[in-house]
């Protein structure tokens, strides 16, 4: 019918996102791009094409992170400056780690990681305390502690990276190659993910639960350090000498972080669910709706990254083991984890399941994930035996 008129308002649709950016946003963009350009100008000659791609790819990611999540900006700046300070203090001499005051007590990787551990434990205590005392101030302290802990952990990893090269250029590698290093990664990523949701929902009530799982990983880290001297930097076995490691492992830990967070919120959900609606405790703890929501978001984020990580793992396997899929125990358990959360998401998104069963499922999911992460290395033998205890 000619009476039908369809108008496409393309021009007006362009009241675009970039118009909504503030001056600080633009400054942030300029800073990130300037940083990348400086890096390229100074080290470009030493980079291979893969590293250039990584550098270029980092720019939009860091930019977008800073725009979407404002708190990421000071965090990034602090981590960058302190990491550079530490690297500068080291110079070309690893021994300064023991002689320089700042390195020895603050910024050498091992000190930074110990600070991270202490701060995470303190943050956990502060979150619980603020929950019991209903103290807004303690809550703010807890948030600050968590930010500091995540910063120290990140700095520790950056500096450890450099330290490995100071040991010997052929020993140098990104610190995601063994169980010790990935536990730091786990604590930092899970901490940051929690902080994101805390900012997003303006609620600290989830902190006590989220930080508890981080403290558990810190406890393991400390045991591993003092009992097994696992913090020593070891050279890479041939199978791990690949650029795939740099992307496969961190991606995976976004997945693990999301699943761990979801499980802790699942526990919180089950607790709140038992409380009488309107009781004093129910008022302090997050609402069921919020928990359900964040639980879903954490699993969705974790699942998306876990999918990418598993695909990257398959591509790496195709280069290292001679096939993209070998039904190796680690691969198989990654598939099991993936299927588990795929089923979880289907139940929620298409069957509309909510609430208690999903909370229980998220908690069970953490056990499945933990087995894939740790159990496989401890109890089953296979190709992927890098992270043995």
């Amino acid at each position, binding site marked *: 019918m000619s009476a*039908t*008129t369809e108008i*496409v308002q393309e021009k007006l649709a362009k009241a675009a996102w970039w118009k909504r950016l503030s001056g600080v946003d633009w400054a942030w963009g300029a800073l990130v791009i300037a940083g990348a350009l400086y890096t390229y100008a100074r080290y470009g000659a030493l980079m291979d094409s893969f590293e250039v791609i990584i550098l270029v790819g980092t720019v939009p990611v860091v930019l977008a992170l800073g725009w979407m999540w404002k708190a990421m900006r000071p965090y990034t700046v602090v981590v960058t400056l302190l990491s550079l300070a530490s690297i500068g203090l080291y110079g070309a001499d690893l021994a300064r780690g023991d002689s320089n005051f700042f390195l020895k007590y603050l910024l050498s990787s091992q000190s930074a990681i110990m600070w991270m551990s202490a701060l995470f434990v303190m943050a956990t205590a502060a979150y619980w305390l603020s929950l019991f005392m209903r103290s807004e101030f303690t809550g703010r302290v807890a948030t600050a502690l968590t930010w500091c802990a995540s910063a120290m952990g990140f700095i520790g990893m950056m500096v450890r990276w450099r330290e490995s090269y100071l040991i010997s250029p052929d020993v140098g590698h990104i610190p995601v190659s063994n169980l010790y290093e990935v536990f730091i990664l786990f604590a930092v990523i899970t901490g940051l993910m929690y902080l994101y949701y805390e900012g997003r929902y303006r609620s600290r009530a989830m902190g006590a639960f989220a930080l508890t799982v981080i403290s558990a990983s810190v406890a393991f880290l400390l045991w591993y350090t003092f009992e097994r001297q696992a913090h020593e930097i070891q050279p890479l076995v*041939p199978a791990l000498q690949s650029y795939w490691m740099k992307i496969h492992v961190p991606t995976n830990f976004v997945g693990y972080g999301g699943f761990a967070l979801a499980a802790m919120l699942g526990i919180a959900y089950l607790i709140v669910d038992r409380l009488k609606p309107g009781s004093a405790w129910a008022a302090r703890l997050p609402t069921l709706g919020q928990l359900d929501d964040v639980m879903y978001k954490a699993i969705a984020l974790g699942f998306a990254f876990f999918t990418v990580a598993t695909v990257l793992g*398959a591509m790496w396997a195709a280069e290292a083991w001679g*096939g993209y899929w070998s039904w190796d125990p680690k691969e*198989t358990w990654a598939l099991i984890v993936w299927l588990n959360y795929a089923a979880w998401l289907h139940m929620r*998104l*298409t069957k509309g399941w909510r609430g208690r069963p999903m909370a229980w499922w998220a908690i069970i999911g953490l056990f499945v994930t933990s087995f894939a992460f740790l159990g496989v290395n401890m109890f089953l033998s296979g190709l992927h035996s890098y992270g043995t205890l």
Partner: protein
Amino acid sequence: MAGSLNTPNSPRPRRGTGAVLLEFLGSMNLAITLLVAISVAAIIGTVLQQAQPYPDYVRKFGPFWFEVFERLGLYDVYGAAWFLVLLGLLLVSTAVCVYRNAPTMLRDMRQFRLDVQEKSLRGFHQRAEWDAAGETAQVAGRAGAALAAQGYRVRVKDHGDRIVVAGMRGSWNRLGYLLTHVAIVVICVGGLIDGNLPLKVAERLGRLQVETRDIPASQVPPESTLPADSAAFRGSVRIPEGGQADFVFLNVRDGFLLQKLPFRVELIDFRIDHYPSGQPKSFESDLVIHDPELDEPLKRTIAVNHPLIHKGYAIYQASFSDGGSRLKLRAHALDAPDIAPLELEGAVYQNLKVVTPRGPLTMELIDFKAYNVFPADTEDGREKFTNYGPSVVFKLRNEAGEAIEYLNYMAPVSLDGRLYFMSGMRATPGEPYRYLYIPLDSQASLDRFLALRASVLDEARVRRTVAAQADGLMPAGSDGAARANLIDSIVHLVGLFGRGGMGAVMDQVEQAVPEAERQQAVESYIMVLQSVIGSLYVDQLREEGVLGEQGVGEADAKFFEDALEAFAALGSYGSPLLVQMTDFQHVEASGLQITRAPGKDIVYLGCVMLMAGVFFMFYLHHRRVWLSVAAVGQGARVLFAGTGNRDRAEFASEFEGLQRVLSKATGAAGNMTQQEAK
């Protein structure tokens, strides 16, 4: 996998069997059941170690359960027919789900549903109504512009009595659904192309037979051989330095198949680089590919993580082993240490025949290692690595077929500053080695130990020594018969200890001495042995000319303690020979994995779709809103409603924001109602 679609109450017509079957195959319940079933099956495959030698399974489960598990295909779960059926069902279920939902999804993405009735808009959870100033066309125009400014795609339709403005955003969310589910199908298809289904079919049809005998490649019969044009396979081959191969072995259950290659692979050299600390740094093979289609042979070096891809065949550095190193060995007869040792020569994987006083033995040379780098825990708990040097592993098999495995190190091992010859032994594979340490003399040779052993086994000599000592041992007034008796029993004890070690002495004690007195008996036996063998040792030192004025030196005394311990342990060493490696010529072999996987690119395509789809699905929300603008008197009445396919709370707040913007843009004249249906 339907459900999330906005298909309101479509009437259900009567359906035939085909439709019911389709509904079942595409149902969410089947899909979830399959996900769980595949997970459980996958877990079984990781808990029960796959593709182990069948005798190991028999030992573990016993003959009955071995048989049951074999029937169920539990030793190769991921290749078992029932597992493939499960995967196939998941493939079909996903495909049916896509087939059923894709048209709706695509329609949802494209169609703005401009003919929506006000009545149905009033049924939405999120809706609002207000009066606007101006003509309907003006109001609709302003609303459309405002909606577009919020990032919505907008369509407008004039129905005469009212104008419908429809907006849509994040429709790629639906694309996400399609991509993820099609991706699963694509990945499965790619995997199927690279899988071993054709082999299974050929085996079922009897065209292929799995070879279970341990025979070299040249003897594999044609019914166990696959031609060079196989589409997909994954096999491995071990090539010694200087050797070549134009085939790989495919492991199938408890046997193998021989896969021919259209080219020959030659191994020039295999190298292991080490870090200064001793850990391996790289494994590399220098290869030459001889391909009739190449003008000249292709020379390439491969390493772990750096395979060679030649015409779609990928060649990987998978492992390494000995390639038949030539060894020179010296075998000392432990029962007759004074005769000249036997000089032997052989290569790894060869068997040598040796005649010993305990009957003929077969010496099977199993492995040679040039380096043995082990972590050694130092006192501060830091890991250090020590290289123990070259070693040889061999089995000594007697005529009855019983074998004991030995691991002997070529270089002396230093413990607390003293040197030892180290030999490990075990009777069953898999158990840890037990080590024998034999002290070495100042020349780092076995001579002194063997000479002492010869004395201990020389009964006449022992008798003389015992006789010389006996007077001191006898109580005063003993008669000659008692003396002879005592000498006999001590000589017997020394002989027992010399031939059978401490084990034989303990057996004797257990037979002859009541339990209460055993402890004491053993202690006195040990004292006697120390005394007799000590005096033999002193004689030997005197002959060697190393016995100084002050008697036995500290080092020599330590040697004696160690030698006694070694004698004590020799009884359970199980070998009449002490085998020393004297020289070697190292030949390495590289274990290559060679694969052809034409489905790989398809799988990767599926992976890319999956990754993109997952992000579209989670991070794009398909939201659609409608404004129905109808003329009321001078102005217009706006009915605004919307729906989002994710996250009701988030959409509710977005809807509220939109409503504010739109009502402002349309110049709301009050009389506002907002509804959120419960």
